């Protein structure tokens, strides 16, 4: 990718709170984030400030999350009404899982002929993106992608290419996932009961992850008009760690997708160069597939302030990593977002300060 893509707006809603201020507080360490063993739930009450309550009557939780994240990003960018030159890219790991299971309930309870059409139409993975576009009147290209842990990264890849090719003038790109009882059951079966200790995202030897949910959106434009922005996306690269992987930059602050899962942590140990400055936010928003969208939003906030965040709770981390203290100057080179999977895939997103900031 050759164009620099500017982040003009940030919209987040997660277990730590709602909006950029809540995100700033969380990053500064004044908000503890996902403290207990359960899933910190995201609250969408703020949606009433953006959308007519009647329009939300039949809206399921994941669509509400997506719409609130998008509305907050537009508000942060100072855009009242997006137009047909606005694209939408929504990433999700599991999609509308609660609505899908509610649809199953409808025919398991009463037989196939009683399947609920309302639940079915809301159960498709692109329902959040469709509801978002319909409520906000966004008629440009609309894309939903699902790539588990790489969902948000692959969404960023396509969103930035749309801008680079001039398909659109701005893109609302984000990630959204919801928590539910069945997910909780699977979590316990896979990983055991969440531990009482805090999530220790950089501890590569212990399983301390806990589930999360939420929605994080960015409003992206080309960095060409001199407007103030919250950092730029320089590149998004995805591939297999055994392939021709680009060198992980040691001169940037690396935000690792490490979120307390021991099985994934080994990949970070192998990939991160010795002496690198690293941090992670798994303790703030929990572990869920689209969480990289939150990492990108956090990076944009850090690039605005120019300072490193409060370090995550640390008990033990690889000796070769350096975890900066809160308030240090960010490296001039900027930030790298690294997401690695246990299956040997990676996504590396490079971000830097905005020229016009």
């Amino acid at each position, binding site marked *: *990718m050759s164009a620099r893509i500017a982040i003009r707006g940030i919209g987040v809603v997660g277990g730590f709170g709602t909006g950029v201020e809540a995100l700033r507080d969380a990053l500064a360490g004044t908000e503890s984030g996902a403290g207990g063993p359960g899933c910190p739930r995201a609250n969408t009450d703020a949606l009433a400030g953006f959308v007519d309550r009647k329009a939300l009557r039949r809206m399921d939780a994941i669509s509400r999350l997506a719409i609130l994240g998008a509305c907050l990003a537009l508000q942060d960018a100072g855009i009242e009404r997006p137009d*047909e030159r606005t694209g939408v890219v929504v990433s*999700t790991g*599991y*999609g509308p*899982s609660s609505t899908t299971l509610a*649809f*199953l309930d409808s*025919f*398991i309870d009463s*037989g*196939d*002929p009683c*399947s*609920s*059409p309302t639940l*079915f*139409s809301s159960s*498709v*993975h*692109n*329902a959040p993106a*469709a*509801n978002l*576009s*319909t409520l906000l*009147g*966004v*008629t*440009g*290209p*609309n*894309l*939903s*992608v*699902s*790539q*588990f842990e*790489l969902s948000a990264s*692959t969404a960023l*890849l*396509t969103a930035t*290419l*749309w801008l*680079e*090719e*001039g*398909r659109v003038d701005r893109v609302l790109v984000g990630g959204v996932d919801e928590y539910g009882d069945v997910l909780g059951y*699977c979590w316990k*079966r896979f990983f055991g009961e969440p531990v009482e200790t805090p999530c220790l995202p950089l501890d590569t030897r212990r399983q301390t992850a806990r589930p999360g949910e939420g929605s994080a959106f960015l409003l992206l434009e080309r960095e060409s008009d001199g407007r103030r922005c919250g950092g730029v996306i320089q590149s998004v*690269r*995805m*591939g*297999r760690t*055994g*392939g*021709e992987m680009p060198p992980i930059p040691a001169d940037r602050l690396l935000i690792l997708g490490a979120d307390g899962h021991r099985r994934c942590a080994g990949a970070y140990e192998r990939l991160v160069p010795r002496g690198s400055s690293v941090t992670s936010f798994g303790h703030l928003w929990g572990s869920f597939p689209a969480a990289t969208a939150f990492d990108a939003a956090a990076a944009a906030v850090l690039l605005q302030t120019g300072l490193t965040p409060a370090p995550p709770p640390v008990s033990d981390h690889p000796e070769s990593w350096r975890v900066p203290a809160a308030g240090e100057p960010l490296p001039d080179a900027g930030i790298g977002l690294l997401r690695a999977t246990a*299956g*040997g*895939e990676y996504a590396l997103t490079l971000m830097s300060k905005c020229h016009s900031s």
Partner: protein
Amino acid sequence: MTPRSPAAVTGIGCVCAAGRDLPSAIASMAAARRAPHPPIRFSTTHPKRYPVFGVPDEFIPPEILGRTDLLVTTRFALAATGQALADAGWDPGALRKARVGVCLGTTVGSALNIEDFYREYRKGGCPELETIERFLRSNPAAAVSRELGLDGPVQTVVNACSSGTDAIGIGASWLRAGTCDVVLAGGADELCRIIYNGFISLMITDDQPCRPFDRERRGLNLGEGAAVLVLERQGAAAARGARTRASVLGYGSACDAHHLTAPHPEGRGLRQAFAEALAAAGVAPREVAFINAHGTGTPDNDRVEGRVIRDLFPETPFVSTKGYTGHTLGAAGAIEAAFTVACLETGHLPPSAGFAVADPDIPGTPSATGLDIRGDVAISDSLAFGGNNAVLVLGRADR
């Protein structure tokens, strides 16, 4: 808009109810053969047996069919990918030395299709996680990339019924941007009870073989299958001596922003998608030899789509091939793009199966008997839940 550089289509794989590969599907459509049947993969308590277009097991190579650790959707994707790579002359070992992206559309392949697991959970049991593990292992783009040992971006597009069309358009953009050397782009989907119940609940499923654009049409029939196109930059394909079958000249997409399941009555998003795709291709409507329409057989889709096509392309013949394949959801756009390329190559359109009587609400009619076509550019379009519309402009290799 400045026309964008085309992507070369160097290989195509396709498996669907119409045939085990693209040549056999084209042959069976030319002979107007179709064989919808009651569901086999699952049971149902619906009093009516709505027909579906299933893929016979013998269409899938046994070594892939036996991969029960993967969803059927993913097995279809692997079968189509194998055909496409062979058609393109790519040895999988050589492919591992290139940067290869995988962009595939799906619906069922990303959904929580976990009915048996969930039934046990609801009863208070402790269901084993095998079903969940299979789901997590089967993300179509990730699985194809992993199984072939590829290095490059992966993206599973979940734009409902336009997913396959979108995946090919996005794959072409990855090539233009230099993100990849090769892209495997397409779509895959399987028949399942959840989707079957869902479409019946919406009352847009026909209990007879579907009749796209016909006055008596009552809905769609579901289908399953996959298609994968090998996309390369034209210069690179020529340099390795590959045959170019066609080019992806343009792609456009737009959202109606109107309704979750019904198209905009004036086809707002579809018009916008057509306009963008034609501009990206640098093609005028009169240059389009034919359109492979979405043509599901639902009253709303065919009325809106038929009106838009006649309005924008007054003289251009169009066809729906869903009468041979059923609606294969996330695979449909890819399968129909494959058919479009094959029809450009043969210069012949198959009969629009199921069409017999013109609908006075639709100004144009599809070809009922098959048609010889002239021209080197064609269009394949898709409409989808969520108000998505996506359009591909495809050109003959010698254009």
